[in-house]
């Protein structure tokens, strides 16, 4: 192996024309990924992007690493096989709200419970982009789309609560164009040993424009977005005077100084607290971003390959002749 060379964003760009619509949030996510990877210190050839189908799933084509643009909803399965057999590789799964939560919902939850050490990024634009604008499992109820002219009647999933319920060991949320935050989340996801789930709110200017305007608009976002930071009180707002208080098992939005509320009343974020993370997942205003939950759990490929090692230790490296001989034989002279 050659000595590690410091890589740059450029090293991760491909010659392929990027084929998203102008203004698509996917561009920002791509750039942030290309900016983040050089900092991780993983050689390009050790990095693999695996995606399903959707606009978002074109992502691997634009990353100058190994990549596999697979089939709709199945990226987690292919990533699992790769990671189990090649644990040394750094594996990223790229998926959309349709890919991961509609057709691929089952693979998502099973990946999370098994906990292989991979990163799964869900680009949530709350719409099916590639197929031109049908509602997705994260579309708000009542949304009018091509396939729901009178508005959807399907209550959406809450991706944070769903993945927590599935037993995920790392659950986070970020925003396509919040470069610093997103890069930070990508690094934290990568740093977590186990399956990391990151929901990235992503604008689709063509079929669901402005879905996250409130979250990204400079004028409003301070009053809308709650940055979760481990060990820090959940304060937000332009004047950082709004906060979250836990009352009887539910979360209340309060204002410092009003009704006698002081900073000590404000809930302190604890990434290790599962039920609190679940509660935070249910918050719609403010919109929490950051790491909701993180716990160390045994890693799937460690366990599986550990059994191989243990078997070899106990029984010795398998001998083929012994295998075919089996327990009882007879000889014809």
């Amino acid at each position, binding site marked *: 192996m050659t000595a590690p060379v410091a890589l740059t964003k450029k090293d991760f760009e491909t010659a392929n024309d990027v084929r998203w619509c102008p203004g698509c949030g996917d561009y920002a996510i791509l750039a942030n990924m290309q900016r983040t990877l050089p900092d991780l210190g993983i050689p390009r050839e050790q990095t693999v992007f695996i995606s399903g189908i959707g606009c978002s799933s074109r992502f691997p084509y634009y990353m100058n690493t190994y990549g596999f643009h697979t089939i709709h909803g199945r990226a987690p399965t292919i990533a699992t096989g790769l990671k189990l057999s090649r644990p*040394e590789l750094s594996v990223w799964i790229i998926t959309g709200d349709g890919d991961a939560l509609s057709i691929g919902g089952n*693979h998502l939850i099973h990946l999370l419970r098994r906990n292989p050490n991979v990163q799964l990024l869900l680009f949530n634009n709350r719409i099916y982009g590639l197929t031109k604008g049908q509602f997705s499992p994260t579309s708000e109820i009542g949304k009018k789309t091509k396939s729901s002219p009178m508005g959807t009647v399907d209550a959406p999933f809450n991706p944070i609560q769903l993945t927590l319920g599935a037993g995920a060991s790392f659950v986070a949320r970020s925003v396509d164009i919040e470069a610093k935050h997103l890069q930070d989340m990508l690094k934290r996801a990568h740093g977590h040993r186990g399956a990391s789930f990151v929901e990235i709110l992503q604008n689709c200017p063509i079929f669901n424009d402005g879905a996250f305007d409130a979250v990204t608009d400079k004028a409003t976002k301070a009053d809308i977005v709650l940055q979760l930071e481990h060990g820090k009180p959940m304060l937000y707002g332009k004047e950082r005077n709004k906060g979250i208080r836990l009352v009887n098992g539910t979360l209340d939005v309060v204002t410092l100084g009003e009704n006698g509320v002081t900073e000590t009343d404000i809930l302190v974020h604890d990434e290790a607290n599962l039920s609190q993370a679940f509660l935070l997942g249910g918050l719609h205003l403010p919109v929490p971003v950051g790491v909701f939950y993180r716990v160390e759990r045994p890693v799937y490929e460690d366990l*599986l390959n550990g059994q191989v090692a243990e078997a070899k230790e106990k029984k010795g490296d398998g001998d083929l*002749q012994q295998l075919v001989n089996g327990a009882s034989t007879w000889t014809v002279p």
Partner: protein
Amino acid sequence: MDQATKVVEKREAVVIRFAGDSGDGMQLTGTQFTQESVMAGNDIGTLPDFPAEIRAPTGTLAGVSGFQLQFASYDIYTPGDAPDVLVAMNPAALKLNLPDMVAGSILILNSTAFVQKACEKVGFASNPLEDEAFRHKYRIYAVDMNKLTAGAVEGMDITGGARTIDRMKNMFALGLVSWMFHRPLDVTVEGLKRKFGSKPEILEANLRVLKAGFHYGETAEIFTHSYEVPAAKIPAGTYRSITGNAATAYGFITAARKAGLKLFLGSYPITPASDILHELSQYKNYDVLTFQAEDEIAAVGAAIGAAFGGHIGLTTSSGPGVALKQEAISLAVMAELPLVIANIQRGGPSTGLPTKTEQADLLQAILGRHGESPVPVIAASTPADCFDAAIEAVRIAVKYMTPVFFLSDGYLANGAEPWQIPDVAAIPEIPVTFRTEPEGFQPYGRDEQTLARPWVRPGTPGLEHRIGGLEKEYGSGMVSYSPENHERMVHTRAAKIRAIRQDIPPTEVFGDERGGLLVLGWGSTYGAIRSAVREGRAKGKKVSHAHLRWMNPLPADLETVLKRYDTVLIPEMNLGQLRMLVRAEYLIPAVGLNKVKGRPFTKSDILEKIEELA
């Protein structure tokens, strides 16, 4: 009357069927008797037959589990047609199997179970043991097995008491027939020791019961005859008995070893394929990773992921599960990754007859995907042949960078035969080259002879590239929507699979080189066809046998071979799937013999048709 005064008859071949409740341990009894028979040097063929329910209610027809075995002093290929001997542990077992018994055959009945109510429950007007006509038609041995079993362990203090003891009566039956056919007990004794090693008291009881059965035959007056089936003249060598599923598992392990790679199995349990998963999960020290996935799609997906990672990706299932895998297999076709999909066929359509055998997934394998999506298909023909076919499947998959279907079926999967153990050192290596040279690298560049694209392990510096399910540009592998490129790639993928013909040896024919009737078979019909053709020839019929291993592509010489015969007969356990391919390919008016009963052909099924045509 001691053994010496009993008559010993010589027989060339005997067919015996054990039948009882699902809980009566008939599968174990059959398997042990098989082991004894192979140790006695006979050639054997077996056919287990059990219900889809785990344990249907006792004493019902639905709950009957059976195991048929033929053992012979010459080489046989099947578990035999009508049994010479039926061991029936209760009236339901007798009722269900009686239609297969010819007059004069031997019935060994557990008389304990033949009480009036049980007989009526399964539709006997009265207790057959008390029916004169019945007693004259067959050679009946009514044995009070429960009582004799209990007697054998008298005085022992056994956990579970009477219930546990009751369940040992199969060992009594096994001891008895072992005496009757001069089988050595040692292998069963060894087997029981392995099974009950940790429960010495249960072991002791089982051994006592087994021996009691043996001695009962020796001493009881009703048994006047015993039978000797001399050892078969089979080629010198070391043998073992093997089932199709075990041979399949060993074949894949061997192939991965010969390729110097890990074997990765992604699987979701399904009858009758699950045993391959069970088998492989025991051989982790052979660098075997088994992943029990959440469904069949995840199973094949993971196998594709492992193949992308540079290992041998395998997925095992049966028809309904394979249906779910087809979209992903199509991805492997486009990505041109090696992958083996093993389909252990069962009765369909839909859930169908999960524990019965059938060959009706051939066209699903060859033609059942969307788009022009060619996949080579290999079919094993006997339980032991599963070993070789599995190795060959892997060899072709990595040589041509393609998914390969491996077809077996319920009959092969659970059936057993003696297997001359191969010298593994003599099995050729499977050459695998991973590309590492960046200079001139084209992800979809091709080997001239095989048309295979290069296999690159992620992790190889300088060869970073992206693949996927959208149409690929010839050479570069970039996404391409060009009409000309698409047509070129469709033809290239087809040509690559056709090129596998260069790896298929010339078609062998058993019988005449030309003229008369050719029976063309594939898969598990091998034994029945070969026996029938041999017998037909012995009777002077001009009939020959060719058996296909590669179903796609068909051998290059097949057209010439087929056209050398006046008539081509294709027996299949489906409505004529190979027949359709042969007719379409060669415009030959092949005749079909189709049995879709969830049961293998018998020799006479085929012989009858031969006599009609030849």
